Protein backbone atom coordinates (compact mmCIF):
# COMPACT_ATOMS: atom_id res chain seq x y z
CA UNK A 1 0.00 0.00 0.00
CA UNK A 2 1.47 3.33 -1.01
CA UNK A 3 0.49 6.25 1.10
CA UNK A 4 1.02 9.75 -0.27
CA UNK A 5 1.10 11.23 3.24
CA UNK A 6 3.78 8.76 4.41
CA UNK A 7 6.93 10.30 5.83
CA UNK A 8 9.09 7.75 4.10
CA UNK A 9 11.79 5.90 5.97
CA UNK A 10 14.14 4.43 3.40
CA UNK A 11 16.04 1.18 3.41
CA UNK A 12 18.40 -0.20 0.85
CA UNK A 13 17.14 -3.20 -1.12
CA UNK A 14 17.89 -5.31 -4.20
CA UNK A 15 21.64 -5.00 -3.62
CA UNK A 16 23.51 -6.68 -6.46
CA UNK A 17 27.27 -6.80 -6.87
CA UNK A 18 28.31 -5.86 -10.38
CA UNK A 19 31.10 -4.51 -12.53
CA UNK A 20 31.12 -1.02 -13.88
CA UNK A 21 32.67 -1.26 -17.32
CA UNK A 22 34.20 1.65 -19.16
CA UNK A 23 34.47 1.37 -22.96
CA UNK A 24 35.85 3.63 -25.61
CA UNK A 25 35.22 3.73 -29.34
CA UNK A 26 38.37 4.59 -31.27
CA UNK A 27 36.39 5.62 -34.28
CA UNK A 28 34.09 8.26 -32.82
CA UNK A 29 35.98 8.78 -29.50
CA UNK A 30 32.84 8.09 -27.52
CA UNK A 31 33.28 7.02 -23.88
CA UNK A 32 30.61 4.84 -22.30
CA UNK A 33 30.04 3.21 -18.93
CA UNK A 34 27.57 0.50 -18.04
CA UNK A 35 26.91 -2.09 -15.35
CA UNK A 36 27.51 -5.78 -15.93
CA UNK A 37 26.01 -8.37 -13.63
CA UNK A 38 28.12 -11.19 -15.09
CA UNK A 39 30.51 -13.17 -12.90
CA UNK A 40 33.52 -11.94 -14.79
CA UNK A 41 33.91 -8.54 -16.38
CA UNK A 42 33.22 -8.87 -20.11
CA UNK A 43 36.48 -7.62 -21.62
CA UNK A 44 36.34 -7.81 -25.35
CA UNK A 45 36.67 -5.74 -28.47
CA UNK A 46 33.53 -5.79 -30.51
CA UNK A 47 31.79 -3.93 -33.25
CA UNK A 48 28.35 -2.47 -32.78
CA UNK A 49 27.04 -0.69 -35.85
CA UNK A 50 29.54 2.06 -36.52
CA UNK A 51 31.31 1.69 -33.17
CA UNK A 52 34.42 -0.29 -32.35
CA UNK A 53 34.29 -0.76 -28.59
CA UNK A 54 37.39 -1.40 -26.48
CA UNK A 55 37.42 -1.87 -22.72
CA UNK A 56 39.29 0.92 -20.91
CA UNK A 57 38.80 -0.50 -17.46
CA UNK A 58 36.39 -1.94 -14.95
CA UNK A 59 35.80 -1.81 -11.20
CA UNK A 60 33.55 -3.63 -8.81
CA UNK A 61 30.52 -1.81 -7.51
CA UNK A 62 26.93 -2.44 -6.54
CA UNK A 63 23.45 -1.74 -7.81
CA UNK A 64 20.62 -1.11 -5.42
CA UNK A 65 17.15 0.34 -5.02
CA UNK A 66 15.54 2.12 -2.07
CA UNK A 67 12.27 1.17 -0.46
CA UNK A 68 10.17 2.79 2.25
CA UNK A 69 10.04 0.63 5.38
CA UNK A 70 6.62 2.01 6.24
CA UNK A 71 4.57 2.13 3.03
CA UNK A 72 6.60 -0.11 0.74
CA UNK A 73 7.17 2.51 -1.98
CA UNK A 74 10.04 1.38 -4.19
CA UNK A 75 12.35 3.86 -5.90
CA UNK A 76 14.58 2.26 -8.49
CA UNK A 77 18.11 3.55 -8.81
CA UNK A 78 18.86 2.04 -12.21
CA UNK A 79 20.31 5.27 -13.55
CA UNK A 80 22.83 5.61 -10.70
CA UNK A 81 26.34 4.72 -11.84
CA UNK A 82 28.11 6.03 -8.77
CA UNK A 83 28.45 8.56 -5.99
CA UNK A 84 31.32 10.98 -5.80
CA UNK A 85 32.40 13.08 -2.85
CA UNK A 86 33.22 16.63 -3.93
CA UNK A 87 36.68 17.60 -2.70
CA UNK A 88 36.97 20.84 -4.64
CA UNK A 89 38.24 21.65 -8.12
CA UNK A 90 37.84 24.73 -10.34
CA UNK A 91 36.44 27.91 -8.81
CA UNK A 92 33.72 28.14 -11.44
CA UNK A 93 32.41 24.62 -10.80
CA UNK A 94 28.84 24.81 -9.46
CA UNK A 95 29.31 21.77 -7.25
CA UNK A 96 32.49 23.17 -5.71
CA UNK A 97 30.76 26.52 -5.01
CA UNK A 98 27.98 24.67 -3.23
CA UNK A 99 30.51 22.59 -1.34
CA UNK A 100 32.35 25.72 -0.11
CA UNK A 101 29.05 27.16 1.05
CA UNK A 102 27.82 24.03 2.86
CA UNK A 103 31.18 22.98 4.28
CA UNK A 104 30.81 25.62 7.04
CA UNK A 105 27.83 23.76 8.48
CA UNK A 106 29.42 20.36 7.91
CA UNK A 107 27.14 19.40 5.10
CA UNK A 108 29.06 17.30 2.61
CA UNK A 109 28.28 17.34 -1.07
CA UNK A 110 28.10 14.12 -3.08
CA UNK A 111 27.38 13.96 -6.78
CA UNK A 112 25.07 11.20 -8.03
CA UNK A 113 26.00 10.58 -11.60
CA UNK A 114 24.52 8.41 -14.29
CA UNK A 115 26.23 6.53 -17.08
CA UNK A 116 28.47 7.90 -19.80
CA UNK A 117 27.94 9.55 -22.21
CA UNK A 118 25.96 11.96 -20.02
CA UNK A 119 24.21 13.65 -22.93
CA UNK A 120 22.79 10.38 -24.26
CA UNK A 121 21.82 8.40 -21.17
CA UNK A 122 19.03 9.08 -18.73
CA UNK A 123 20.38 10.71 -15.57
CA UNK A 124 18.73 10.54 -12.15
CA UNK A 125 15.62 12.67 -11.78
CA UNK A 126 14.78 15.01 -8.90
CA UNK A 127 12.81 12.40 -6.99
CA UNK A 128 15.62 9.85 -7.14
CA UNK A 129 18.17 12.43 -5.99
CA UNK A 130 16.03 13.55 -3.09
CA UNK A 131 15.22 9.97 -2.01
CA UNK A 132 18.91 9.09 -2.12
CA UNK A 133 19.74 12.13 0.01
CA UNK A 134 16.99 11.31 2.52
CA UNK A 135 18.18 7.72 2.70
CA UNK A 136 21.73 8.62 3.67
CA UNK A 137 20.65 11.33 6.09
CA UNK A 138 18.16 9.00 7.76
CA UNK A 139 20.84 6.35 8.04
CA UNK A 140 23.25 8.81 9.70
CA UNK A 141 20.48 10.50 11.71
CA UNK A 142 22.37 10.75 14.99
CA UNK A 143 25.14 12.63 13.32
CA UNK A 144 26.19 16.25 13.66
CA UNK A 145 26.77 16.55 9.94
CA UNK A 146 24.63 16.08 6.85
CA UNK A 147 24.82 14.89 3.27
CA UNK A 148 23.70 16.91 0.25
CA UNK A 149 23.32 14.98 -2.97
CA UNK A 150 23.29 16.77 -6.29
CA UNK A 151 22.91 15.57 -9.86
CA UNK A 152 25.86 14.96 -12.16
CA UNK A 153 24.20 17.49 -14.50
CA UNK A 154 25.76 20.26 -12.41
CA UNK A 155 29.24 19.25 -13.51
CA UNK A 156 30.13 20.96 -16.74
CA UNK A 157 33.44 19.29 -17.39
CA UNK A 158 33.80 15.92 -15.82
CA UNK A 159 37.46 15.63 -16.77
CA UNK A 160 38.32 18.58 -14.48
CA UNK A 161 36.59 17.02 -11.53
CA UNK A 162 38.85 15.36 -9.00
CA UNK A 163 36.35 14.13 -6.48
CA UNK A 164 36.44 10.57 -5.21
CA UNK A 165 34.09 8.12 -6.82
CA UNK A 166 33.01 5.33 -4.50
CA UNK A 167 33.88 2.03 -6.16
CA UNK A 168 36.17 -0.88 -5.50
CA UNK A 169 39.41 -0.30 -7.30
CA UNK A 170 41.92 -3.10 -7.97
CA UNK A 171 39.82 -5.76 -6.27
CA UNK A 172 40.60 -8.27 -8.99
CA UNK A 173 44.33 -7.91 -8.79
CA UNK A 174 46.42 -10.91 -7.74
CA UNK A 175 48.19 -8.78 -5.15
CA UNK A 176 46.68 -7.05 -2.09
CA UNK A 177 46.47 -3.28 -2.43
CA UNK A 178 49.87 -1.51 -2.47
CA UNK A 179 51.74 -0.03 0.52
Amino acid at each position, binding site marked *: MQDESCKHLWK*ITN*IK*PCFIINEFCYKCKKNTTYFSLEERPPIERYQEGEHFWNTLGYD*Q*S*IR*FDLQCKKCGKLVKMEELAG*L*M*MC*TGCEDNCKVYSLMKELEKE*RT*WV*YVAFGFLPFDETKQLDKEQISVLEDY*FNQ*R*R*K*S*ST*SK*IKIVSGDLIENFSLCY*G*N*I*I*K*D*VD*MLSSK*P*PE*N
Partner: protein
Amino acid sequence: MKLKELIDKFELKALTNIEDTHIKGVYLSDMLSDVMSRAESGSLWMTIQTHKNIVSVANLIDLSAIIITNGKNVPDGTIELANRFYVNILSSPLPTYELAIKLVEAGVK
Protein backbone atom coordinates in the same frame (compact mmCIF):
# COMPACT_ATOMS: atom_id res chain seq x y z
CA MET B 1 32.81 2.90 24.38
CA LYS B 2 34.23 6.25 23.32
CA LEU B 3 36.82 6.43 20.59
CA LYS B 4 39.60 7.97 22.73
CA GLU B 5 39.16 5.24 25.32
CA LEU B 6 39.47 2.64 22.58
CA ILE B 7 42.68 4.23 21.27
CA ASP B 8 44.32 4.01 24.71
CA LYS B 9 43.06 0.55 25.50
CA PHE B 10 44.16 -1.10 22.27
CA GLU B 11 47.27 0.96 21.61
CA LEU B 12 45.94 2.27 18.35
CA LYS B 13 47.85 4.96 16.56
CA ALA B 14 45.88 8.03 15.53
CA LEU B 15 46.87 8.99 11.97
CA THR B 16 44.51 11.96 11.81
CA ASN B 17 43.19 14.55 14.25
CA ILE B 18 40.69 12.77 16.46
CA GLU B 19 37.16 13.93 17.18
CA ASP B 20 35.91 11.85 20.06
CA THR B 21 32.66 10.01 19.45
CA HIS B 22 30.67 7.00 20.60
CA ILE B 23 31.35 3.70 18.88
CA LYS B 24 28.18 1.98 17.76
CA GLY B 25 29.42 -1.34 16.45
CA VAL B 26 32.16 -2.75 14.27
CA TYR B 27 32.20 -3.58 10.57
CA LEU B 28 34.88 -5.68 8.86
CA SER B 29 35.20 -5.41 5.10
CA ASP B 30 37.67 -4.55 2.38
CA MET B 31 34.99 -3.70 -0.15
CA LEU B 32 33.87 -0.10 -0.21
CA SER B 33 30.58 -0.87 -1.92
CA ASP B 34 29.80 -3.38 0.82
CA VAL B 35 30.53 -0.84 3.56
CA MET B 36 28.51 1.82 1.77
CA SER B 37 25.46 -0.42 1.54
CA ARG B 38 25.61 -2.31 4.85
CA ALA B 39 27.72 -0.76 7.61
CA GLU B 40 25.86 1.04 10.35
CA SER B 41 26.40 4.70 10.99
CA GLY B 42 28.74 5.20 13.95
CA SER B 43 30.54 1.89 13.42
CA LEU B 44 34.26 1.31 13.55
CA TRP B 45 35.44 0.08 10.17
CA MET B 46 38.42 -2.26 10.01
CA THR B 47 40.09 -2.65 6.65
CA ILE B 48 43.40 -2.97 4.81
CA GLN B 49 42.27 -0.52 2.12
CA THR B 50 44.12 2.79 2.27
CA HIS B 51 42.94 4.46 -0.94
CA LYS B 52 41.46 7.99 -0.64
CA ASN B 53 38.06 6.50 -1.40
CA ILE B 54 37.80 5.12 2.15
CA VAL B 55 37.33 8.73 3.33
CA SER B 56 34.38 9.22 0.93
CA VAL B 57 32.65 6.13 2.27
CA ALA B 58 33.34 6.79 5.98
CA ASN B 59 32.08 10.35 5.58
CA LEU B 60 28.97 9.35 3.63
CA ILE B 61 27.64 7.06 6.33
CA ASP B 62 29.35 8.81 9.23
CA LEU B 63 31.48 6.00 10.64
CA SER B 64 33.13 6.65 14.00
CA ALA B 65 36.59 5.70 12.69
CA ILE B 66 38.51 3.65 10.17
CA ILE B 67 41.11 1.27 11.61
CA ILE B 68 43.79 0.26 9.14
CA THR B 69 45.08 -3.12 10.23
CA ASN B 70 48.30 -5.04 9.59
CA GLY B 71 50.28 -1.85 10.21
CA LYS B 72 49.75 -0.83 6.62
CA ASN B 73 51.17 2.46 5.52
CA VAL B 74 48.49 5.05 4.70
CA PRO B 75 49.28 7.53 1.89
CA ASP B 76 49.54 11.22 2.87
CA GLY B 77 46.75 12.08 0.44
CA THR B 78 44.33 9.87 2.33
CA ILE B 79 45.31 11.38 5.69
CA GLU B 80 45.00 14.95 4.39
CA LEU B 81 41.56 14.26 2.97
CA ALA B 82 40.44 12.58 6.19
CA ASN B 83 41.54 15.58 8.26
CA ARG B 84 39.68 17.92 5.98
CA PHE B 85 36.44 15.94 6.33
CA TYR B 86 36.87 15.13 10.05
CA VAL B 87 37.16 11.40 9.37
CA ASN B 88 39.12 9.59 12.11
CA ILE B 89 41.78 7.14 10.90
CA LEU B 90 43.61 4.84 13.29
CA SER B 91 46.21 2.20 12.71
CA SER B 92 46.97 -1.12 14.35
CA PRO B 93 49.90 -3.48 13.74
CA LEU B 94 47.56 -6.45 14.31
CA PRO B 95 45.79 -8.37 11.55
CA THR B 96 42.05 -7.61 11.32
CA TYR B 97 41.03 -10.92 12.88
CA GLU B 98 43.28 -10.58 15.93
CA LEU B 99 42.19 -7.04 16.63
CA ALA B 100 38.55 -8.06 16.17
CA ILE B 101 38.93 -10.80 18.81
CA LYS B 102 40.46 -8.30 21.26
CA LEU B 103 37.60 -5.88 20.68
CA VAL B 104 35.00 -8.59 21.25
CA GLU B 105 36.77 -9.70 24.44
CA ALA B 106 36.64 -6.11 25.67
CA GLY B 107 32.92 -5.95 24.94
CA VAL B 108 33.06 -3.79 21.81
CA LYS B 109 30.60 -5.34 19.34
